[in-house]
């Protein structure tokens, strides 16, 4: 078990986080750029001497500043794959992998394991972003560290190679018994690779849980947006959630008291004229933005209860920004849970 409970402060930025990662577990850290993800990895790696608090690996204290303990990186059993790989430019791929090994002659086996033995003699400058990433991963893993840290492992990979490299990274992440933490700005990547997800915002833990936990019960607008959900906060009683501004949302079931509710954007229907039929939640509001993507069109509707709808390109034809539309949501599509 890796237990982290730390703070650090640097020119206007403050990080304050507490969480644990089990052996055999992959923790995905998601958050916007500048939220403190890389700082967190550097603290765990032992690259931030200014941190305060505790980093414990089982019974070993990597850092316990209250007791005056702080082990530098070279004394922690840690593998670090920094963003952009950061291979040693004056060494071949093979020498990069062998750098930290007690038996450097076994470095080639690690390149073979990641399917890049043919790159052994190449200099970092000759490698593509994805190849460099794999070498950096081999270099970090070659010491069989207890804790593996990856910073944006898939960010520097060109789209053509993304699938195969993602596969290799995933396989490497999922093999072995290690505490693994990776950082990403891309929620899809976190969902694809992580056992549990830690959402970071402004240097703090916004929410931590399995993908399912987060999807079912996002506890902040940021988390909901990461997962592509509409999130509403209000007070529920008997199937009705009172939102701010006097608006209400009707759900099939609600707890009593402060509650969150989520609605998937595809469950939000838009009409140019008042729909007839059963939907319990119907209101009229202006379209504030229309964003086409490949298969669905995202339409943002403003008013007192802002909501995002996803419709097919055909379904989006009648709408223009600024026009008023009718919003309809079935009560059965509103998922409510205690706040």
């Amino acid at each position: 078990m890796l237990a982290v409970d730390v703070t650090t402060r640097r020119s206007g930025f403050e990080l304050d986080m507490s969480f644990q990662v089990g052996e055999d577990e992959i923790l995905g850290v998601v958050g916007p750029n500048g939220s403190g993800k890389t700082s967190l990895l550097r603290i765990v790696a032992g690259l931030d001497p200014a941190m305060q608090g505790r980093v414990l690996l089982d019974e070993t204290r990597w850092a316990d500043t209250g007791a005056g303990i702080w082990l530098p990186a070279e004394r922690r059993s840690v593998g670090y794959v920094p963003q952009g790989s950061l291979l040693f430019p004056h060494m071949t791929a093979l020498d990069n992998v062998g750098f930290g090994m007690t038996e450097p002659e076994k470095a080639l086996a690690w390149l073979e394991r990641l399917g890049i033995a043919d790159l052994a003699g190449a200099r970092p400058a000759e490698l593509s972003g994805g190849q460099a990433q794999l070498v950096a991963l081999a270099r970090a893993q070659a010491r069989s560290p207890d804790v593996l840290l990856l910073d944006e492992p898939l960010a520097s990979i060109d789209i053509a190679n993304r699938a195969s490299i993602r596969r290799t990274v995933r396989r490497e992440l999922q093999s072995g018994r290690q505490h693994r933490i990776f950082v990403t700005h891309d929620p899809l990547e976190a969902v694809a690779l992580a056992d549990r997800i830690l959402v970071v915002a402004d240097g703090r833990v916004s929410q931590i849980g399995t993908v399912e936990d987060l999807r079912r019960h996002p506890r902040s607008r940021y988390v909901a947006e990461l997962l592509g959900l509409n999130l509403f906060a209000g007070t529920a009683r008997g199937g009705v959630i009172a939102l701010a501004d006097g608006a209400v949302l009707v759900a099939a079931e609600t707890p009593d008291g402060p509650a969150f509710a989520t609605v998937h954007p595809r469950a939000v229907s838009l009409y140019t004229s008042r729909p007839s039929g059963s939907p319990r939640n119907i209101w009229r509001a202006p379209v504030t933005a229309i964003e086409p993507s490949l298969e669905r069109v995202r339409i943002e509707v403003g008013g007192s209860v802002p909501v995002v709808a996803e419709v097919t390109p055909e379904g989006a034809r009648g709408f223009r920004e600024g026009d008023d539309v009718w919003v309809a949501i079935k009560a059965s599509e509103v998922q409510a849970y205690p706040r």
Partner: protein
Amino acid sequence: MSIPRRLGILATVGIAGLVVPVVGLIVRTSWGRVLSDIGDASSAVRVSLVVSVIAVTLAVLTGVPIGWVLARGRFRGRTVLRAAVLLPIVLPPVVSGVALLAALGRNGSFGRWLDGAFSIGLPFTTAGAVVAAAFVAIPFVALVAEAGFRGVDAELEGVAATLGAGPWRRFRRIVLPQAAPALAAGIVLGWARAVGEFGATITFAGNLPGRTQTLPLAIFFELEQDPAAAFSLSFVLVVISLGMLLAARRAWMR
């Protein structure tokens, strides 16, 4: 891209000013005498070699660590420290010599202690000439080394640390190889500066043939007695300097 005419003219004037004296020297050199003149000045050549090699060794041993401290150190007063270290580059050499005399002369504050405690007297000795040359060479090595170290991504050292490398191994295996071209250039520049030292040397170490009389001093005093010999020796220094410049450039550009 075309060069503005005014700049071109001024640059041409400047280049002519730089090249003409060297050409003049080459023209005045009597080729037949060069070898025998060097032979006559063999003791100055020897002193120059000994002094400059020891001085540049000292400059590397101290200047490289200074460059490291300036590049990576995070402490208050680093700017002041850098200014203090680089001062000898801009100081008139004779002032450097006077300063050395004031501190390390027999009546100097530090020199008296050296003399009393170890019976070491630096002024007017070969060791003094080494000190004078090192005094002006160290800042060059430190300056170029700092630039070289700054060119090495500090993050790479962090990665090396996570791979189990302690500070010394990180310096030796990660930083030094990458800064090597800059360090080589620094060494060449520092050596060139040590070889050419005149003002500080004559002020602090004097002009004692066979002990402190280096090639530049020999040339200066030969100019009154045998100008042709002065031209020969100057020509030799031009060739050596040019060689060093090319070596430094190659190291720099690699």
